[in-house]
């Protein structure tokens, strides 16, 4: 057996030829330190100050305490969880079903893959503007115009605070294609022998999907839940475009990141915004660890 090299051999980090490898990693390491590690440390330092980003006074953990007693913070947190949960609940099964349908298509598989992926290459700004007209609150809105054919009165999709969050999540479903592609890759790795065995046992299509496909996709589901949760908790572009920094109507579209944006870039309370950013970071970390632990227990 070859002896492990490097620090374990007592030769330190740099073996005879290791420096070349480290040198090649250096640009990336510098990038990570300058653009990720340093901003994270600096953000934490700012979160301990009352600062506009330029001049500051050290206030300890006052910003954290202030955030945790602020009603707007909890409103943003509540909206984020509500929209996040809805987004995962609709997006996860939606994209999986879509992937299954594409996987079973006997022809045009690549065509459907391209079509459903297409929305992901369109800017969220453009999508939001288009969907604003879909969701217009009068009969001129496309959805209300269709509903009026069935005698339904115009619905204030983006005007009513109770519906605005749901409308934005529905809009997000237009971009299921990306998640569907990941599921599709997983579906194609399910061993065919299992389906053949199920056929021999007389299982129908639905039964095979439920008892073979889904269990074999467990790790993909686990990965997707984590990624979707993180993505949902960081929601910003669509709510900014539709609700403006106010998160209108009545703050129902005020998500955590939008709240951070408003505080930092409009109110110039950068210290407070940094504290909220760290709280969001802690929440996302907690959710990710929880997800991973739950999935490990299932294994």
């Amino acid at each position, binding site marked *: 057996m070859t002896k492990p090299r490097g620090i374990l051999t007592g030769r330190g980090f740099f073996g005879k030829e290791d420096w070349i490898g480290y040198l090649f990693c250096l640009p990336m390491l510098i990038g990570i330190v300058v653009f990720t590690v340093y901003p994270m440390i600096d953000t934490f330092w700012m979160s301990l100050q009352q600062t506009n980003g*330029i001049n500051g006074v050290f206030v300890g953990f006052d910003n954290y305490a202030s955030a945790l007693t602020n009603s707007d913070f909890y409103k943003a947190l509540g909206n984020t969880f509500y929209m996040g949960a809805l987004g995962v609940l609709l997006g996860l099964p939606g994209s999986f079903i879509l992937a299954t349908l594409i996987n079973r298509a006997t022809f045009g598989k690549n065509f459907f893959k391209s079509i459903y992926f297409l929305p992901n290459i369109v800017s969220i700004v453009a999508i939001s503007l288009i969907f604003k007209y879909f969701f217009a609150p*009068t009969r001129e809105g496309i959805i209300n115009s269709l509903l009026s054919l069935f005698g339904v009165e115009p619905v204030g999709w*983006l*005007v009513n605070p109770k519906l605005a969050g749901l409308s934005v999540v529905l809009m997000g479903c237009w971009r299921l294609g990306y998640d569907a592609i990941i599921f599709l890759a997983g579906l194609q790795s399910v061993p065919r022998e299992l389906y053949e065995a199920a056929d021999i046992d007389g299982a129908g299509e639905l039964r095979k999907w439920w008892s073979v496909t889904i269990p074999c996709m467990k790790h993909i589901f686990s990965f997707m839940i984590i990624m979707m949760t993180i993505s949902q908790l960081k929601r910003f572009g669509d709510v900014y475009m*539709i609700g403006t920094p*106010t998160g209108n109507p009545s*703050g129902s579209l005020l998500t955590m990141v939008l709240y951070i944006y408003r505080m930092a870039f409009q109110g110039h309370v950068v210290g407070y915004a940094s504290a909220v950013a760290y709280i969001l970071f802690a929440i996302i970390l907690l959710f990710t660890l929880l997800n991973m632990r739950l999935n490990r227990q299932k294994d």
Partner: protein
Amino acid sequence: MSRKSIARFLVIALLLSLLAGCSPSGTTTGTGTTSGSTTTASTSGDGGKQLSGVVRVAYAGAKADDGINELTGEPQRGFNTAIKELFNTKYPDVKVEVTAIPWTDYSTKLQSLLMSKSVDVLGSGGDERILYNQGFLRELDDLIAADTEFKPEELYAGAAWDNCIFNTSVDGKKFGLPGTLGYRLIVYDKQLFDDWGVEYLSDHPTPEEVLEKAALMTGKNPKTGEQNYGLWFDGNDAANSLYTTLGIYYGAPGFSGNIADGIKSLTMEFNTPAAAKVFEFFEKAVKFCNPGIVSSQGAENFGLEANNTAIFLERNPKVIIANYQAGGKSDTSMIDRFVPTLNFGPNGEGWVAADNIVIAKDAQNLDASWEVAKFLASHDFYEYLYKDLNWVPPLTPDKADFLDENDIYIKKALEIAQHSSVNAHDYLPELNSLEITPFVAGYIAQCVNGQNPAPQAAADDLQQRAAKWQTSLK
């Protein structure tokens, strides 16, 4: 090739690529050469004053290069061309480097340039007070006093100069020259008034007159049978402008006291009976509006044949003039149909935004920077901004001699600007962004959905928020 040679080659290649990556993307010595959004307008020759050197300009919302006007489809000169044609003929040895700053997060971008001392003169897009308070900008009083040819009070409209909050510190020091003005008017559609048989708005309407007439024109149009709305205003933007304008009309400035004594010394007055009247106006007004005002929708046909709203508040009528220009300036039918009036203030004033030209505290070449700043706030440059970019010149009405004779909107905007003055809300931009804007926008949405609290209760709530914000300041 040995392993050692391969490793040596790869290391050299890596270092070269790093060097290439770190080097500037290119040095420009010609005119109008662009690299990203940074462009250079340089020139050489003799003549003009003995000024020379480089002046670095960063301008929010600028168009650095020649292009096409997105509204009219006409060719449009960029800042570089304008500077070359209008400034460098007088100062040929001053090289002006223009960086066009996109509107998205422009304030942060300008702040970064100032922190890195990479800019001398800025078109600051409305956030100059914040930059000044952060200590980045130079006061201009000494430069103005020393420049005997410069007569700002004769040149600039009242809202742009006399105690203008956007370029004057709380203790009266000037730190900016006017760059351009905002453009918000009351505009009504004569055709809809005719259809409904309603008397036209007066030239200086009151909120009560507007509400009364809007009520008469909401419903099915008696001639066309189409749904008409009496009124429109932007529910998201209302807090920035309409709330302030109504505050001027009802006598609700928001606070009292001397801002120079510090924000903590002010008395917040967001819940006076006069302040509650502003909320009362919103409560009544939304009944005559397209519910789309909550998401800034419902005014898509403004200025067009298909328009279905009678009165617009705080509206920018740029699109009407752009369509007129795009049509070869021959068809004035929409200009005749959509009529602007003065705003609600006692003298016709309203909330008027003014973007300013400011000079960095660490400006490298002060004499040349001052000349460039003055040029960017001059009659000639305003003429370029108006003709090529449709920007509003912050001039007194008599000095704006280059306006299109059919542009009744800019003329009205300058009339309003001439009468307008400092507004209290503008002294507290952070409070405006953090509390007033979201609160008022939220209240309007509540009114549209019939879930709003009583006006006085709303005013009390805002007062509490303002007081809490004030207390939180260290």
